[in-house]
Every structure is written in structure tokens, then in C-alpha cells.
């Protein structure tokens, strides 16, 4: 229990708080830098694996040799370029724009000669790497390919695809891509691929975005802006995962008694004393400004350890909506 958030906010009876997330086909984990997005993504993947879900974790990358914050949680330097085990029961892969573009060209240019000509064309390669929307299109198509993959029994190869999304702007340009490009190219193979992608991404039973935030002023403001942006691009949103919520060990009486010395001396320990107060204020502000579920992940001594986050996610508590506003969706 995270004390001090409010003792009556216990976990709801029944299953754990991320069961909704684990039912989806594709989940985008997004949020501003420095909030622990990749630890939460890794923890969610671990949780999925423990529940027996065939999970694929992804990160958007330019180069398979790039440093990967997500891979670090699995004791690796980088993610594989195509799905391969990165931990027991967990597959990982980079979503590479270039390989997505190649897959797309191969699927569209049925003629082998044309496809080979296209792929070996220096001019075409340069065009694809320069145009901003071409890059997103490549990522989009690569994701679509993973979503389509089926096993011999007809079941999806990857039941759940979890994506550690880059900074806010990049997330919105990916979720807004189908609508933007469909306005430009309403017909043809690109349009068909975009519509198929949309049929996953805009369906709340199949896809969801979760915003990771921390209970501080600017991160909460940016989280609210991001939620609004996601809504505008038609991306279903599962909720906010409030990471590193400070634990408050003090009783109300102790707080009153200690306040004077904290203010006068500003001693060692004052930061720890004051942080939960701010966190409560910011969580309340977030609650007042969104109807979406807010899940609290308490701060842990070894901050960011994904296995402990996964444990905590099983029992994490949700911040209920005020009585007057109805129930949590």
C-alpha cells in the first residue's frame, strides 16, 4: 500500500490492475523522458509472460547497433533486429523503419524483378530515409507485419505486442499517421495497409496506449497534454501508470509535529518528508483532469528494477474517480 495517497484507495477486488492491458493485441507505452517508461514496459512484459501471454516487446529504432534503454532491463546491450528471445518466454525486436519499408515494397511489387530493382535503387533508398512520413510508414508496416503473423494453428504468433514509445512528439506522429496519410493517398496499397493498421490501433478492444508519468508538476502537465493529443489522433487510451510514487511513512500527527523543524532547519530528510505532499497534490490534479484509470506504482528502494515493478503491478492500487463523476471505466 502506498500510504498517504489515501488509505481508502485500496486495490479493487478481483484480478490485478493491468489485466485490461494484457488482453490487448498491441499496447503503446508512452510518456515524457525520465519517467521510467522502459522499466514499466519491461515490467509489463514480465507480467504478461507470467500470465502465459506470448509477448513481443519492441522499441522504435534506426539502427540495430544503437544503444537501447529497454534492452538494458533484460541484461542486454541492444534488441534483436527481428523477434528473438530476450528472456524466458519474452521475445524482443526493434521496429526498424528500413525493414518495414522493404517488407512493404516486397508485398506490393509482386514482380520479383521490380522488387529487386526497387530495393537495390540507391535513389529510392535515399528518398525513403529522408522523408519524415516514410520513416513512420516503415515502422507502421513493420508493426502491422508482426500483428498479422500467425502460427500453424491459426493463433497469432505474438498475442501481445508491447512498444516502448519514443518521446511525446514521435508517439503522436505515429498514432496520427493513418489519418494524415489517408488524406494524401486515399487509394492504393498504402491506403490499404494504413486502413488495416487503423483497424487494430483504433479498436479499443485490440489496442491501447498507456502514459507513464511521475507525480511532479511538469510531468503531470505534460501527461495531460499527451492524453489530449492521443485522444485527437483517435488512439484508445488505457490510463496513466504513475511511476515512483513516494511512500509516506508519517502519520498526520507526526507530520504536524515535525513541520516546524523541517521548515526552520531544512535538515537532511526534509526532501523525503516533503515529496509525498507534492505527489498527493499532483495526483489529485491529474485525477481532477482526466476520467481515465490512474494506477500507482510506489517508489522502490532499488528504483527502476523491472522485476520488482512487475511484482508491484500485481497489487498496485488505482486512484478512484470522485463519487460524483461515476465509476472507473
Amino acid at each position, binding site marked *: 500500500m502506498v500510504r498517504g495517497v489515501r488509505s481508502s484507495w485500496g486495490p479493487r477486488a478481483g484480478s490485478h490492475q493491468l489485466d485490461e492491458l494484457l488482453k490487448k493485441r498491441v499496447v503503446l507505452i508512452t510518456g515524457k*523522458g525520465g519517467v521510467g517508461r522502459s522499466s514499466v514496459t519491461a515490467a509489463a512484459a514480465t507480467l504478461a509472460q507470467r500470465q502465459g501471454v506470448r509477448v513481443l516487446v519492441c522499441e522504435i529504432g534506426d539502427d540495430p547497433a544503437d544503444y537501447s534503454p529497454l534492452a538494458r532491463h533484460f541484461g542486454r546491450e541492444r534488441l534483436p533486429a527481428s523477434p528473438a528471445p530476450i528472456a524466458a518466454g519474452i521475445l524482443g525486436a526493434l521496429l526498424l523503419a528500413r525493414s518495414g519499408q522493404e517488407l512493404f515494397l516486397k508485398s506490393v511489387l509482386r514482380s520479383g524483378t521490380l522488387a529487386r530493382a526497387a530495393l537495390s535503387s540507391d535513389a529510392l533508398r535515399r528518398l525513403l*530515409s529522408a522523408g519524415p512520413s516514410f520513416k513512420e510508414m516503415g515502422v507502421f508496416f513493420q508493426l502491422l507485419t508482426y500483428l498479422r503473423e500467425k502460427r500453424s494453428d491459426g493463433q497469432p504468433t505474438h498475442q501481445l505486442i508491447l512498444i516502448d514509445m519514443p518521446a511525446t512528439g514521435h508517439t503522436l506522429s505515429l498514432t496520427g499517421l493513418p489519418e494524415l496519410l489517408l488524406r494524401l493517398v486515399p487509394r492504393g496499397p498504402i491506403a490499404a495497409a494504413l486502413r488495416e493498421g487503423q483497424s487494430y490501433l483504433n479498436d479499443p478492444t485490440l489496442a491501447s496506449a498507456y502514459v507513464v508519468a511521475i507525480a511532479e508538476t511538469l510531468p503531470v502537465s505534460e501527461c495531460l497534454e499527451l492524453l489530449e493529443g492521443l485522444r485527437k489522433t483517435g488512439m484508445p487510451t488505457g490510463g496513466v501508470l504513475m511511476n515512483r510514487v513516494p511512500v509516506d511513512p508519517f502519520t498526520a500527527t*507526526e507530520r504536524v509535529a515535525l513541520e516546524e523543524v523541517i521548515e526552520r*532547519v531544512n535538515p*537532511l530528510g526534509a526532501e*523525503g518528508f516533503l515529496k509525498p505532499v507534492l505527489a498527493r497534490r499532483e495526483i489529485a490534479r491529474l485525477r481532477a483532469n482526466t476520467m481515465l484509470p490512474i494506477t500507482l506504482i510506489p517508489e522502490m528502494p532499488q528504483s*527502476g528494477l523491472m522485476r520488482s515493478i512487475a511484482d508491484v503491478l500485481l497489487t498496485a492500487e488505482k486512484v478512484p474517480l470522485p463519487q460524483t463523476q461515476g465509476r472507473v471505466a
Partner: protein
Amino acid sequence: MTTDTVRIGDLIRTRRVIVCCGAGGVGKTTTAAALSLAAARAGRRVLVLTIDPSKRLAETLGVSRNPPTPVAVPADRQAAAGISAPASLDAWMLDPKLVADESVRRLTKTPEDAQRVLGNRIYQQVSAMVAGMHEYTAMEALHRLVTEGRYDLVVLDTPPSRHALDFLEAPKRLAGLVEGRAIQAFLPKRDSLVARAASKVIEKILSAVFGEEFAQELVSFMMTFSGIFSALNVDVNAMRRFLSGPDVAFLLVTSPAASTLAEAHFFQDKTKELGLPFRGFVLNRSRARNTSKRWPDEESLDQISPEGKSGIPKLQSFAHAELEAARRDLGLLTELQQRAGQNATAMAVPELPQGADDMITLITVADALAAA
């Protein structure tokens, strides 16, 4: 470069461009604002150039968001911050779409040409797509401002990006499109039989991928745009040379978190690889200063009411944790200093009070940077 130790205070006073790189959420924009404030306080004409900043910073500096050109920080705020003529502080929170439009107008030969590009629906849609355009426009704006010579120093807050050096790579990719006349391959050919045949194949590919109608539109768009691309290409190469020169300093802003540190190291290697002048680390949110904080004396503790006494051991465990963190951050700074090597430095900026990016706080940070 002299062999003297690099000092951030000197960079502020002597360089023409300071580029702030770093992962998202490390306080990069605040650091860029504090650096520019410090330089203006030291008597220089300064511009801070930032993209997609927090509203709060724009409010602190008293400038509007997304104006078409740089704007002066209001005179009363400059005076309050101790900036007096001929020194000045301008800020530009730029909107990528506006800057892209501006570049088109500048690089086209006639207003009619400009209108043709600006009115093209491919241009309208793609330039509205923020990711990627950020990098082009930042580079474009920086180049223009530096060549104009209106400022002694331009501080660039790089766009939020997983890879902060993307803003250097993205224009290079754009340049790659023009080099070897890549675009020409997509355009209808009249000259040789071979070129015509090659162009036919590409036409087929484009029609298959985009549909015939859109492929036509795309080709005609690229014809109009190729002239602009080539003009921009010259700028990009000149800019790369300039950014590698002695008038420029790259600073990496980081925080004590393991992930942002790892990324800072990655950026440092990358700047070296690209031949860019890496000049130092700014370690934000350092708790190193807490080593000087004290535990309350016996008398203060005695005054705490009996029913609150049970809180003291709890406070004490926070105190232990904070002291430990402070020592860790102190060690971290030493490590960064060693890593910085001969031609660079490392300095720590303490954690700012929550949400306090008001002018007073910025000046405090600015003074710390200037003295470093």
C-alpha cells in the same frame, strides 16, 4: 584550442554557438535558458533557440510561443535579470511549420514558385508532420541566425528526441537525397535511352506503391521541390563545417539516473565520432550539495511534541538515504570529470525546487554556470 582546462564560464563568454544535447526529461531547456541568461548577464547579445518547449519557460522569459521570428525578452525582465545594453537576450520558441514555410519563401526564386510549393497538398501534409521536420528546421534557423551576425551567441536547445544528435543526422539524410542526383531518378527523362528505361522502372514502382494518380502528383511535387533541396544542401554542408569549428561548443545535459547517464555517454562518443567539439557535461538534479545539510540539533528535536516523536526515526531513515544519494552524486561528478578528459569539463547543478523555473531560479543557475 588552448591546453587550459575548459570552463563553462569561458564557453559562455567566448563561443558563438552552444548546443545543448541530452535525453528527454533531464532539464535541457532550463539549462539552455540559464546558459543564455548567463551570457547576456556577462554582456553579450544572446539568442536562445528552442523547439516545442514547456509553456512555463515561455512564461518565465515573457515571450510568446511560436512567433515567426526571434523576440526580445521584455525590457523590464531583462533589467530585472541584470542585462543592460549593448547586451541583450532574445528567445525564439520556434514552430517547425512556420520555419519550413519561411525557408521555402527564401529558397525559391519567385513568389509564384513559393506559392506553388506552399499550396501543394503533399507539402502541407508532410510539413505538418512534426517528427523529422523539427531537425531540419532547427538546423535551418541556426544557420541563418549565425550567418546574419545579429547575435554574439546562439544557444540551441536540441529537439526532444531519443537520439539528441538526430538534428545533425536528419539534414545529412536530406543532403543524401540531393547528392548523386537521387531525385532526378524519379523525374521523367528525355536524354539517353538508358536513363529513360531506368526512369520507366521507377515510375512503375511508384505507381504500384502509391497508385497511379498519387505517383504523378508526387513526381510533380518533387520537381518543384528539388531546387529547394539543392539550395538547402549547400547550407547543410556549410553548417556541418561550422559546427565542427572552434566557435562552437557541444554540452551534454544529463541527470544522475542510470539510463540518462548511459545515454550521455553514448552522445559523447557520437559527437567524437562526428568530429564535433564536445566540451562538457552538465549534471542536473545533482543532490551532491546535500552533503552539507545537517541533522537537527538536540534542542530542536527536544522541542518536538511527544506524540510526534515517533516520526523522528522515520525522518532519520530519509536523512540516511539522502546523505547516501548525495555522496553517490558527488562521486558521479568526479567520474564525469574524468570521462570528460582534456578538452571538456563536467559540472553539477543542484535539483531545483519543484516547478521553480521562475526568473530568480534561472538567475541562480545562470550564476552557477558562469562561475563554473
